[in-house]
């Protein structure tokens, strides 16, 4: 742990205003060489804006960025790269059709008589990857790799550009445990080499495990700086981030359950060929846990009709749903919030109000044709208020909202259905801050309290255990076990979700 050393990177009184919104105001902090600096804050606190300023994508309205005491004037991403800064965003920038090697050497592939010298490139890449202890096939195309591996390529690319300052924006949000391990090792190596690093994560465990210092943002301002994390508790961080105390973030209370609402009988689809069966009762929240690729999302998509159903039956209150027919599912009160919010959940260029009303409006059309604007405005305002969706007004394009608020709007879309019976949510809190998570759990509880059957897919074990009345584990396309709330513990749920013969390391890391 390095406690001495001059600041390699310094933000001084940074301010940035977007039309109608002050994203950052008078924010400053320092990052030492040879340290990992945690950046914390709820979604929309200004962390990503700060990273875009560091990366040269935004020019700050006020203040300056200094590297080794020298004030920098980044006008473009190229300026930042030239100054040794590498910002690795949540959304990676790579060429999926090209190989690892080509991505790493993009723009400077070695040539021979004007042609690419593949042999030399291959040898060079192998050597570098080995030196970094990264296990990747240089010839594999990026699109064949897992998200975690692609992220690794991105980091290696930054290192190879001799970056001295590295910022990682939520790098682990889609990584497996093993991939996370590799990433952490790499980050520690880089720290030992004297790089200055900024690490953004919503997972406080990671901050404690990895970071030497931390800064907390809230509403575009700095609210706390920690030069060292010894003696700092989780609660202290959460309280500063949220600005209020959150006792138990899950806030579970038991409910009474009714009859079976959703009945899934032998359902299979192309991505999930093995028939799956389960029931969910009215008022019950069932958590589906499993590793990425266990088939949880895939089977839910088939149940909803988003993907083709090849066999089996789905019944809502005893009535069969037409296979592969989303609108029939919605008409029967069975709805689904997909995992990939941006690609499949929101319609980015449309307003918050449009995104909320898109489905329920069919019940309020005037003369069966015309949109009832007044009713829709009322609906939108109701949910903006009730779910505390933070937006300047309902006509704001939804892409401009933070992830948590987008998710609340997608939930509102289904809450506005007058006859909601079954809600399936896929990773509802991925990439969402603590405060908004808590609010989303409350929505689920409220719905269950009204008799809705809720299915929640989540890869976060504490969340599954904290929110569900019953936990179902899946592995390799089949349901492996079910636990009621009392008997669901980290150990037995995880054991049931892991493929047989999986090493004990995965359990330790969970």
């Amino acid at each position: 742990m390095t406690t001495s050393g001059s600041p390699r990177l310094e933000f001084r009184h940074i301010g940035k205003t977007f039309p109608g919104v002050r994203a950052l105001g008078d924010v400053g902090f320092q990052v030492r060489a040879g340290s990992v600096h945690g950046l914390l804050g709820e979604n929309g606190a200004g962390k990503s804006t700060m990273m875009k300023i560091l990366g040269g994508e935004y020019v700050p309205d006020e203040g300056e960025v200094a590297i080794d005491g020298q004030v920098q004037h980044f006008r473009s991403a190229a300026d930042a790269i030239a100054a040794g800064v590498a910002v690795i965003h949540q959304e990676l920038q790579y060429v999926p059709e090209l190989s690892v090697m080509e991505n790493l050497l993009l723009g400077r592939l070695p040539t021979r008589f004007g042609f690419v010298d593949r042999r030399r490139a291959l040898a060079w890449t192998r050597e570098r990857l080995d030196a970094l202890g990264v296990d990747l096939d240089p010839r594999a195309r990026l699109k064949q790799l897992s998200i975690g591996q692609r992220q690794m390529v991105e980091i290696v690319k930054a290192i190879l550009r001799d970056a001295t300052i590295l910022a990682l924006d939520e790098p682990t949000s889609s990584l497996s445990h093993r991939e996370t391990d590799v990433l952490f090792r790499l980050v520690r190596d880089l720290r030992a080499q004297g790089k200055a690093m900024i690490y953004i994560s919503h997972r406080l465990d990671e901050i404690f495990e990895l970071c030497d210092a931390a800064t907390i943002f809230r509403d575009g301002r700095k609210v706390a700086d920690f030069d060292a994390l010894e003696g700092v508790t989780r609660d202290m961080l959460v309280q500063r981030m949220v600005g209020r105390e959150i006792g138990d973030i899950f806030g579970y209370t038991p409910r009474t359950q009714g009859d079976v609402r959703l009945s899934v009988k032998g359902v299979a689809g192309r991505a999930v060929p093995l028939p799956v069966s389960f029931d969910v009762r009215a008022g019950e929240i069932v958590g589906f846990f499993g590793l990425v690729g266990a088939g949880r999302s895939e089977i839910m998509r088939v149940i909803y009709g988003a993907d083709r159903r090849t066999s089996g039956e789905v019944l809502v209150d005893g009535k069969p749903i037409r296979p592969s027919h989303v609108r029939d599912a919605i008409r029967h009160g069975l709805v689904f919030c997909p995992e990939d919010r941006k690609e499949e959940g929101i319609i980015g260029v449309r307003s918050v109000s449009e995104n909320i009303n898109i489905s329920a409006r069919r019940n309020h059309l005037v003369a069966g044709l015309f949109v009832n604007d007044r009713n829709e405005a009322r609906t939108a305002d109701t949910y903006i208020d009730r779910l505390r969706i933070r937006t300047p007004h309902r006509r704001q394009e939804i892409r401009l909202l933070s992830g948590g608020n987008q998710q609340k709007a997608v939930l509102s879309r289904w809450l506005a259905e007058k006859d909601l019976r079954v809600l399936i949510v896929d990773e509802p809190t991925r990439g969402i801050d603590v405060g908004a998570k808590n609010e989303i759990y409350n929505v689920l509880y409220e719905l269950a309290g009204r008799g809705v059957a809720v299915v929640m897919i989540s890869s976060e074990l504490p969340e599954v255990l904290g929110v569900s009345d019953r936990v179902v584990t899946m592995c390799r396309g089949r349901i492996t076990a079910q636990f009621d709330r009392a008997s669901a513990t980290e150990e037995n749920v995880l054991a049931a979700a892991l493929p047989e013969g999986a090493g004990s390391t995965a359990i330790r890391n969970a």
Partner: protein
Amino acid sequence: MTEPNAAAIVPQRDTREERRRALLWQIVDDYSLIGIFVVLFVVLSATVRYFFSWDNVVGLALSVSQIGMVACTMMFCLASRDFDLSVGSTVAFAGVLCAIVSNATGSVAIGIAVSLAAGALVGFVNGAVIAKLKINALITTLATMEIVRGLAFIASHGQAVGVTNESFFALGSAEFIGLPVPVWVTLACFVVFGVLLNKTAYGRNTLAIGGNPDAARLAGVAVDRVRIAIFLIQGLIAALAGVILASRITSGQPNAGEGFELNVISACVLGGVSLMGGRASISGVLVGVLIMGTVQNAMSLMNIDTFYQYLVRGGILLVAVLVDQLKNRRQSR
């Protein structure tokens, strides 16, 4: 997240001043095009002889009436992130078909009805192939563009088909309350499609599909049905434009409407319709059509060689796209 997590940051209440400024910007954005058109119109009225006269303005409106009609439906097509290159061929084919059927049956009404049905059929085929068989709209309509143009030539043996029944010409030249019928039809299109876009579930669903087709489908929008409807209506209106054009030029011509599809798309883009889908406004399209027509009209009045008009039209389009790009960039910063 690529977008600034910005909008959510500031609590709603204490930023009234900033919200007002944002709203002002939005108004400037929304109406800047209309402003440009007004300035253009005033400047041309003051500087170009004969420009500001009732006869010339009516002539201008008449000259853009075909483009205007089809621009309404093309707006839907672009708003849903699709594309239609076949409209020019449909215009020609509908004109030829109307002339042939009218001559054969002696009834203009039957001729028009058959043409409109044929146009709708072309549109339906486009829509069905694109929505159901998931074939790229550019390729699909490029193919139908060739096929339908071919049908027009085959049906007419490559010759202009004159119409014998004189009542047919009324469609293109008769006047009603001081304006020619085609101008009325175009105005009606703008009203109907404006209402459709802004006030109906069909219009909102079109924009949702353009904004994010996958999300729209998962939100319960009947994506395939809407897309087929968009193309079907587009074919119908293109055929209507073809019939009216044939009436104006008193014959069905197989080579009519060449490059028509590109003029229509240009007018839409000029009017701020996003090629990325999800954004469109009927007033924008109206102004886009008018700007194209006005510039052409003024250049004709100034005796500028038609060859140069191509340059000017292309230039205007480039500038419009550039302005749109700058506007988007400012919004996402």
